[in-house]
């Protein structure tokens, strides 16, 4: 009941109080809408316009009195568009209350005493204030009165108090629910928890708060924190140019919108605490997880994602409400049609990441069935499974589907073949056979062409219009004379350091007939359709020697994005590989630590085929997707790395 009130009330109570009714939105009434802004509520509008022949856009910078009101209209591509007012301060309150109510639905257990709650609230608020002061440009776009001056700044005072109230209520609620939170991990794909007009996410804030408690609680965390300090110092000291604004778009709430001292400070520490928080929750509760319940929740959440995706496409008002209350990073797909004819993302910001999720849910269901040696599912579970299959089909994530088939096959071999030699041979042949078949069918280029395709794509986004052409109008790049381009003095500033390196490697290795890193990356990228995306990455990625080693700090791709001028500095073009994202954040050092950690986890669980299959499934998909840039996929990934505590062979 409370949930229904919370969904309806904000959009109805602030109405015009007038006997005049708002006109129906039509081509000839748009002018009326433009002249009577901030008068009629969203509800009053909907009463007059129950059809779905218009679009709703959000006017995020509305003042409090214009919240939930119709603040204008336009005609874009012959379709009327109305603007609904939202407000930074009220969004923070309304969305947080809604999510707290949802959080209260998690079943209670015996109280688990959390110490250091008050100090954690205090530090969290300080960090949030630093965040607001560091991303001024982002907040100025989202609020007409945003300012970081302290005098009479009631907006800032209110934000502090709102954070205090949210964290205080959360801290009281969490003590009786902390051990059940992991059961609800799948639901973060339904409720993403990103605030409408802030670059913050409630899940991130919550885990950051828990992480600060974990910092004070465990000596290991304190030691790690001390070791982490020089890295933060390094990330801050390597800032050469402040960058005020980066449009975070679909990765809102989990990435910085600015590159300056305070933003690097906030995202570095908050990310560490966020990790501490999640690992703390895993640590205290994962051993008690009932895998069957967890399976049901995964299946249910996958189905809910499909359900909300479908209903969001039915009507613009539903689309707006799902965006607002589920805390989506971006409004859900407005139609059932696929993007560019190939993928439908629904409520997810990315078709690729949600495709991986559906495939993972199906794989997990298979893994648990084999693990429990119980292949029967309830009627509900069968229905949910079918809905997840439909979701996977609509998301059109071919890589996730193929890896689902391969790893299912692999699991059967690992579990059912007892003879070690046969097992080894069959696994080896699966691991060799599938990639070879894939490459044979999907690599349409010759080895030579695919080995330099990446370089050509990188040069295509570089600002090198000055290149001379021959009598046929061909540049040195068309003639594959790449090294000649980087030798040019003009290229010093125009070619990124990473592209420079790749060209050198390609050029000299080719001469000496040595295999080289450029050919390797390019040949892998070509058949998995990543030549263009990774080419853009290397065209833009311009690290200094030190940032190549250590990166520019967690959740900060701003310097990568704007630090080097290229033709791809507009629109959100992500690296399309989580490995490359990690490279930006933590550099080669971070990648090495990550690989060592993965190796350690895999080697120590080498006799656990269930764990092996789930982790490898995720790792393979991460190689070609940006999933780790989304908070829900990131948390799922960390959770999967801990499922060895749940799936134990022999039990």
């Amino acid at each position, binding site marked *: 009941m409370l949930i229904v009130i919370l969904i309806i009330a904000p959009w109805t109570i602030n109405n015009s109080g007038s006997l005049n009714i708002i006109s129906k939105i039509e081509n000839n009434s748009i002018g009326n809408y433009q002249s009577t*802004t*901030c008068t009629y509520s969203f509800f009053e509008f909907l009463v007059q316009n129950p059809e779905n022949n218009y679009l709703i856009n959000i006017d995020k*910078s509305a*003042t*409090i*009195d*214009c919240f939930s009101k119709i603040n204008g209209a336009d005609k874009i591509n012959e379709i009327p568009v109305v603007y609904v007012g939202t407000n930074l*301060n*009220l969004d923070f*309150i309304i969305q947080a209350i809604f999510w707290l109510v949802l959080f209260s639905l998690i079943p209670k257990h015996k109280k688990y005493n959390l110490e250091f709650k008050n100090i954690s609230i205090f530090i969290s608020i300080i960090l949030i204030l630093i965040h607001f002061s560091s991303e001024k440009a982002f907040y100025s776009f989202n609020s*007409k*009165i945003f300012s970081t001056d302290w005098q*009479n700044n*009631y*907006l800032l*005072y*209110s934000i502090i*108090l*709102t954070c*205090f*109230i949210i964290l*205080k*209520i959360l801290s*009281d609620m969490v003590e009786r629910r902390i051990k059940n939170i992991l059961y609800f991990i799948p639901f973060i794909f339904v409720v993403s928890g990103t605030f409408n007009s802030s670059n913050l996410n409630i899940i991130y804030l919550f885990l950051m708060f828990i992480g600060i408690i974990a910092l004070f609680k465990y000596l290991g965390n304190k030691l790690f924190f001390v070791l982490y300090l020089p890295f933060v110092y390094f990330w801050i000291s390597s800032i050469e140019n402040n960058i005020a604004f980066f449009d975070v778009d679909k990765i809102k709430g989990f990435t910085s919108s600015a590159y300056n001292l305070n933003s690097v400070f906030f995202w570095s520490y908050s990310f560490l605490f966020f990790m501490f928080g999640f690992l703390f929750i895993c640590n205290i509760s994962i051993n008690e997880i009932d895998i069957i319940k967890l399976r049901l929740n995964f299946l249910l959440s996958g189905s809910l994602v499909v359900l909300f995706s479908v209903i969001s496409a039915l009507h613009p008002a539903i689309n707006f409400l799902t965006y607002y209350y589920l805390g989506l990073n971006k409004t859900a797909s407005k139609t059932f049609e696929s993007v560019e004819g190939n993928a439908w993302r629904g409520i997810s910001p990315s078709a690729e990441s949600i495709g991986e999720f559906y495939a993972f849910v199906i794989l997990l269901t298979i893994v648990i069935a084999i693990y429990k040696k119980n292949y029967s599912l309830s009627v509900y579970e069968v229905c949910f499974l079918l809905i997840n299959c439909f979701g996977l089909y609509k998301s059109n994530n071919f890589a996730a589907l193929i890896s689902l088939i391969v790893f299912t096959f692999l699991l059967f071999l690992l579990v059912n073949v007892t003879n070690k030699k046969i097992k080894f041979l069959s696994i080896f042949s699966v691991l060799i056979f599938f990639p070879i078949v894939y490459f044979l069918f999907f690599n349409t280029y010759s080895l030579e062409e695919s080995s330099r395709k990446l370089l050509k794509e990188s040069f295509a986004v570089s600002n090198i219009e000055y290149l001379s052409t021959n009598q046929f109008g061909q540049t040195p790049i068309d003639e594959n004379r790449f090294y000649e381009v980087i030798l040019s003095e003009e290229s010093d500033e125009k070619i990124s350091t990473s592209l420079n390196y790749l060209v050198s490697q390609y050029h000299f290795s080719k001469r000496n007939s040595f295999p080289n890193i450029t050919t390797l990356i390019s040949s892998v990228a070509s058949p998995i359709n990543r030549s263009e995306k990774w080419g853009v990455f290397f065209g833009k990625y311009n690290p200094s020697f030190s940032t190549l080693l250590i990166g520019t700090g967690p959740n900060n791709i701003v310097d990568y994005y704007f630090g080097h001028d290229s033709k791809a500095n507009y629109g959100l073009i992500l690296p399309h590989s989580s490995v490359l994202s990690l490279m930006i954040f933590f550099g080669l050092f971070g990648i090495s630590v990550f690989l060592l950690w993965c190796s350690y986890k895999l080697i120590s669980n080498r006799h656990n085929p269930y764990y092996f299959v789930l982790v490898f499934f995720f790792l393979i998909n991460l190689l070609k997707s940006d999933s780790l840039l989304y908070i829900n996929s990131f948390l799922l990934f960390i959770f999967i790395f801990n499922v060895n505590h749940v799936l134990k062979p022999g039990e």
Partner: protein
Amino acid sequence: MQEKTEVICGESDLRPNFEEIGNNPNFVFENDPNFETIRLFDIEGNVVNVNSWLECANYVNGGWVTNFTNLINYEKNLFYVLAITSIFLIASNIYAKIKD
């Protein structure tokens, strides 16, 4: 209103007829080089830079202000509500601790 105009635009001997100005679509405000440009805001947050006392007085008469003080009233009220809620939360917490 005159007092408000003096606070925002400064003193002047002029006593303009705003109704007349408003009804005349061809009225053009002339720039006063001795007048320091003032930035005014309306309730929607729209901005206008005025370059003469007359222009300034006309806008102030129409409800424009030099800052967001008027808009901040909503923020102020919200702040008080949140402050009371916070005090209530702290008090209930202290009460629960004493009770334990």
